[in-house]
């Protein structure tokens, strides 16, 4: 009887195949086109899904074992950190504002990634690819929830953390991350995986989760450090999935190359624009700094991304066309974005401030060619005015880029003194862009980008007031109504950091910690 024959030990790869793709079969009662209705319309040609190389080989039993271990560690630290008032150990309450942005702008994206990977985890006809995507779908849920749970204790004591999901759907600056992910998830499954799995995870998230999170550790924020690094341990799998996808698509058919190249170009730029907010978080919002945005960019984008593009050259993939502009912008990005948020600090759920003299010296040293010449005079003027009780707030709504939706705050390539204006007419309407690359993305798919929900325009259309508001009532204050619609508590969540409730509370609480009364 066959039980007596000694069994051959299966190798990792063979065993994993039996545990995943061998479970699948070609349906016969329902045609393939109905079972996988989203597989073909993007024009990507896949001839043989069996050529898919599993990027990692984790069966569910091992997955649960290792993830449970990570979760146990993570929640033990979160509990200990909360119980011991760990928040009073951060360098300075200014720091917390970076974490507010994390909760409102990044956490909702983790949830979107969760749903997006559930979608492609169902949509791909290849079984191996589906399993890898599904695993990422639950990982992304993990990230959303560990962030919500880690930051929950900050919410109890500090302002601006209180309504992230509501704000994500409404607040002006959050339309930047929201439109980014809406763009990805509304694309076909192949573009989704290239956009998120490859351009975003592989090329860009390192910048958020590695140097920024190391910065969080440096600033005493054990909570963020823990969820950040713990999430990133899953990202290594996700990055590998992204890279495998791109190789697989390119190896399947030469006709896929131009499509993939267009997606890489598009998503590299979309990602760079989205990460501009991380640039300012690193350079302006960490009281103790590990490295400048520019240095992080050089390591993780130029060196690491560069190695990747060199590797992909054998498939005919070229460095994205936007690379040159990206290289020039690294000296300006964080300063321009911080300026923009300082302008519109009245309408955000976090505080802004001007750097101290010591911090400006650090910026001068890290940005020797640009900071003193273009930005220091502006910042010193703002600081002087603030000290005189005349803090600058821009009270008129900005012009936004139709594609990335960021205020048009970026300057002409090669001329940091002039705003970069680009426009396009399409079907009798005008559209405006912050850059050639954003315009190019629009030109490729105008029917998509004309739909953009641009916060400034929506406000002027009267769509951003609380339900039941009468804009014709006497004394109607539109800005106050918009902030109410956002659920931003005026005078608590927004505006200048100096003298804010967060600032005063943190100082008082920390003072109590140093005394014995």
């Amino acid at each position, binding site marked *: 009887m066959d039980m007596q024959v000694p069994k051959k030990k299966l190798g990792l790869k063979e065993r994993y195949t039996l545990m995943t793709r061998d479970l699948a079969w070609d349906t016969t009662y329902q045609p393939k086109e109905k079972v996988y*209705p989203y597989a073909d*319309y*993007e*024009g990507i040609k896949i001839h043989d899904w069996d050529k898919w190389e599993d990027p990692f080989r984790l069966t569910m039993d091992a997955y649960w074992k290792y993830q449970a271990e990570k979760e146990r560690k993570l929640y033990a630290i979160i509990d200990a950190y909360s119980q011991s008032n760990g928040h009073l150990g951060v360098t300075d309450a200014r720091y917390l504002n970076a974490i507010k942005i994390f909760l409102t702008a990044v956490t909702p994206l983790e949830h979107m990634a969760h749903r997006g990977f559930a979608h492609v985890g169902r949509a791909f006809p290849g079984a191996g690819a589906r399993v890898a995507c599904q695993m990422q779908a639950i990982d992304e849920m993990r990230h959303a929830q560990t962030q919500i749970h880690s930051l929950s204790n900050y919410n109890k004591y500090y302002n601006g953390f209180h309504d992230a999901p509501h704000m994500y759907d409404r607040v002006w600056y959050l339309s930047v991350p929201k439109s980014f992910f809406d763009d990805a998830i509304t694309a*076909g499954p192949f573009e989704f995986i290239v956009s998120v799995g490859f351009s975003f995870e592989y090329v860009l998230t390192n910048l958020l989760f590695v140097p920024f999170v190391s910065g969080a550790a440096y600033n005493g924020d054990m909570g963020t450090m823990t969820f950040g690094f713990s999430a990133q341990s899953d990202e290594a799998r996700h990055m590998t999935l992204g890279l495998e996808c791109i190789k697989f698509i390119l190896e399947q058919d030469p006709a896929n190359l131009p499509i993939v190249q267009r997606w890489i170009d598009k998503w590299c730029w979309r990602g760079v624009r989205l990460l501009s907010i991380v640039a300012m978080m690193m350079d302006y919002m960490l009281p103790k700094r590990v490295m400048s945005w520019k240095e992080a960019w050089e390591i993780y984008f130029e060196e690491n991304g560069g190695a990747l593009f060199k590797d992909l050259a054998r498939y005919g993939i070229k460095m994205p066309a936007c690379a040159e502009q990206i290289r020039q912008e690294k000296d300006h990005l964080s300063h*321009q974005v911080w*300026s*923009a948020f*300082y*302008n*519109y600090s009245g309408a955000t759920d976090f505080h802004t401030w001007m750097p101290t003299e010591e911090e400006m010296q650090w910026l001068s040293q890290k940005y020797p060619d640009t900071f003193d*010449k*273009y*930005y*220091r*005079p*502006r910042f*010193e*003027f703002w600081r002087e005015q603030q000290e005189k009780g005349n803090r*600058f707030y*821009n*009270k*008129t*709504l*900005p*012009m*936004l880029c139709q594609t990335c939706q960021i*205020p*048009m*705050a970026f*300057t002409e390539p090669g001329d*940091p*003194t*002039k*705003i970069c*204006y680009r*426009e396009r007419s399409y*079907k009798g*309407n*005008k*559209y*405006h862009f912050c850059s050639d690359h954003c315009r190019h993305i629009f*030109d*490729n*798919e*105008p*029917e*998509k*980008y*004309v*739909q*953009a*929900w*641009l916060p*400034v*325009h*929506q406000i*002027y*259309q*009267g769509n951003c007031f609380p339900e039941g508001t009468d804009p014709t009532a006497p004394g109607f204050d539109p800005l106050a109504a918009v902030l109410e619609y956002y659920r931003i508590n005026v005078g608590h969540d927004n505006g200048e950091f100096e003298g804010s409730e967060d600032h005063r509370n943190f100082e008082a609480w920390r003072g109590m910690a140093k005394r014995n009364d």
Partner: protein
Amino acid sequence: MQVAAVKDYVGVPRDVVDNFHGNQLVYVGWDDHLMFCAPLTFPFPPTMRFGDIVEKVLPGAYGYHPDWARIDWSKVEWMKSGEPWVPHFNRTLAENGIGHKDAIRFRTPGLTGIKGSCS
């Protein structure tokens, strides 16, 4: 280019002029004054006199800047859609040919922001 989709994909533009309750959008940017981080967006009726924008609206938006009071309006250079252009202050937006979502820029020669930094 067409959007690749499972069926016809037609976008409904969200910002057509009809959605603004009788107003149109006008973008205004002051060159070399990046203290205002981006050009501004205003909803104006097309019947509004152009001069009223400059005299009554812009001071509220830009008056904070020390250069604002120093502007010599006779020397100001205007651009529309990136091209040199001359507005008539006594005519309306419509009469000036300013359409919905037109971007207008003005340069104030001799004024280059805080300590010449174009801020």
